[in-house]
């Protein structure tokens, strides 16, 4: 058999295992399929959207606030922009926010948790007391307070949410790290002269990876909802940025007569948050069945 043949066989095996997995875990499957659709629509928005210029500050004075029709399936907004286009592009904004917030939060939270759990003592005490303070705020509250002192923009909102989100990962990783450190193989590595950095990278981090992955997947929906809420209150994305929370807030003032404006972006938030939450639940069931819902 050629190398290519072996490769293809292995790929088939992986696919079969994946298919098996998805059939056994409907929560994960439904979430993954819905999220895949959202991601594809967001990535290919320039090709799929009826009028890509409407994602910016185009104006069409002759087609202002039109009800859904075959030309504008989601209707138009007060500038005459096609709302289907803006909802599609809104997916790009939201996915960017979720990915960047979680990446920044993990990049701050995981190293701090490793340090606290691995070294213990005074360092641990200081880091954990600081996380306690951050965890004393509901996420929406602290991100709003931070966002309120900056000029409102997507970038500042991402920072504001990330700053409130890292302590969850610190607390989680610290617990895992502290339990691994006490195991005999870590102790024997130390006596053999293995460096701290190597022990953390080879033994502590891999042990903490699964629960962190599960937690991150469970948090994505929460980050999406918080970011939409901040934009809804006017402290996040600003027009003409297409963002679902902002669009709901813009549509709210027309809601009694133009129902479609606020309705469709809201449905987009709900569906995407559900997809994230289903994936989070599914991954937890599969990878980490002992963890209970804590948030």
């Amino acid at each position: 058999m050629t190398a290519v043949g072996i490769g293809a066989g292995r790929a088939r095996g992986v696919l079969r295992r994946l298919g098996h997995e998805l059939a056994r875990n409907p929560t994960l499957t439904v979430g993954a399929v819905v999220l895949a659709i959202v991601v594809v629509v967001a990535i290919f928005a320039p090709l799929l959207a009826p009028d890509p210029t409407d994602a910016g500050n185009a104006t069409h004075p002759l087609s202002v606030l039109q009800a859904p029709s075959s030309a504008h399936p989601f209707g138009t907004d007060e500038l005459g922009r096609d709302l289907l286009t803006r909802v599609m592009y809104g997916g790009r904004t939201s996915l960017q926010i979720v990915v960047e917030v979680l990446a920044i939060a993990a990049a701050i939270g995981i190293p701090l948790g490793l340090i606290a759990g691995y070294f213990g003592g005074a360092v641990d005490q200081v880091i954990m007391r600081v996380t306690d303070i951050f965890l004393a705020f509901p996420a929406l509250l602290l991100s709003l307070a931070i966002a309120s002192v900056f000029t409102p923009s997507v970038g500042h909102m991402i920072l504001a949410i990330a700053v409130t989100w890292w302590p969850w990962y610190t607390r989680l990783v610290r617990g895992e790290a502290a339990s691994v450190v006490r195991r005999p193989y870590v102790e024997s590595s130390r006596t053999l002269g293995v460096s701290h950095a190597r022990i953390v990278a080879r033994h502590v981090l891999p042990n903490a990876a699964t629960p962190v992955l599960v937690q991150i997947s469970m948090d994505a929906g929460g980050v999406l909802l918080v970011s939409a809420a901040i934009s809804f209150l006017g402290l996040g994305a600003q027009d003409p940025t297409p963002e679902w929370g902002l669009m709901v807030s813009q549509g709210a003032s027309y809601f009694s007569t133009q129902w479609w404006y606020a309705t469709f972006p809201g449905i987009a938030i709900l569906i995407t948050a559900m997809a994230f939450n289903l994936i989070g639940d599914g991954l937890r069931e599969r990878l980490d069945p002992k963890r209970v819902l804590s948030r």
Partner: protein
Amino acid sequence: MTRFVLKRLGLGVLVVLGVVVLTFLIARVIPGDPAVTYAGPHATPAAIAHARQVLHLDKPVIVQLLDYIKGVVEGNWGTSYRTKQPVLSNIGTALPASIELVVAGMLIAVLIGLPLGVLSARFASRAPDLGVRVVAVVGVSMPVFWLALIMQRVFSGSLHWLPAAGQYNANLYYTHPLTSYTNIPVLDALLTGNWAVLGSALSHLVLPALVVAAYPAGLIARMVRASLLDTLAESHVRMVRSLGFGERALFTRFALRPALNPVVQVVALVFAYSLANTFLVEAVFDWAGLGSYAANSLQALDTPAVMGVTLVVAVTYVVLNLIVDIVQALIDPRIRIQ
């Protein structure tokens, strides 16, 4: 036990102090100049200099911090840029209405979430379980501000079943004036026997309370289900089952109570979360509470007011957490040793 309580209290005080310092730090890193905001647009340099003195911005940061902590402790939380009134008295006026809303929301959430969670666990992996899990996931994935708009539009705008906004019918101000003791219309109306206002206030409460309840109801249903399934797998329940008790007795007499312990904790913690969520709900329903105050202050960049609200909600969260910890340690001695 005393040692446990003292230790938790000490940690609680430390966290509250940290929360105060953190809100101070956030207020300090404003890119703009608080004195300019305070003095208002078109202020003369003299007015700005005066504002700087009033706000003590001319002192070193550490002195400002100590002044701020002292002020917080003494009840001087600064003056709102927007209302020009003390922040603490503004919050005192607004908070009761929000507590009314959140308590009503939590009651609804428990009344919906608890039975759904039990149903889900009783028929685990069967049709009712699937249905409940879908409902619960919708609940925790719901953008509350959007739900508020939809509910208002459907139940008030289209169906005319319930009033759209406000805390009770404004016409009653004159026909049935309400004496205010608590700033909570439902409670005040009950205390003074003002039935007309009570009916109106209750009907105004339904929609916003349902919206506030959506997330906690979903969360409680999920928690009850998970916790019950855990408990059902424990040996004491297996023994009860092998003794021949039916499923009904198993659920009501043996499994439910231990399973509710973690749920109580979640209810307390989600209370503060819901208090923050009122920022999104109250504006839609024109509810004169902390959420409306916060939303208006956020839009006006009224930093002292925003920090005051932040402080109140965070301290509520810490205190509730503390109470839950202590109560659970009283009930379950194992927690004290941890």
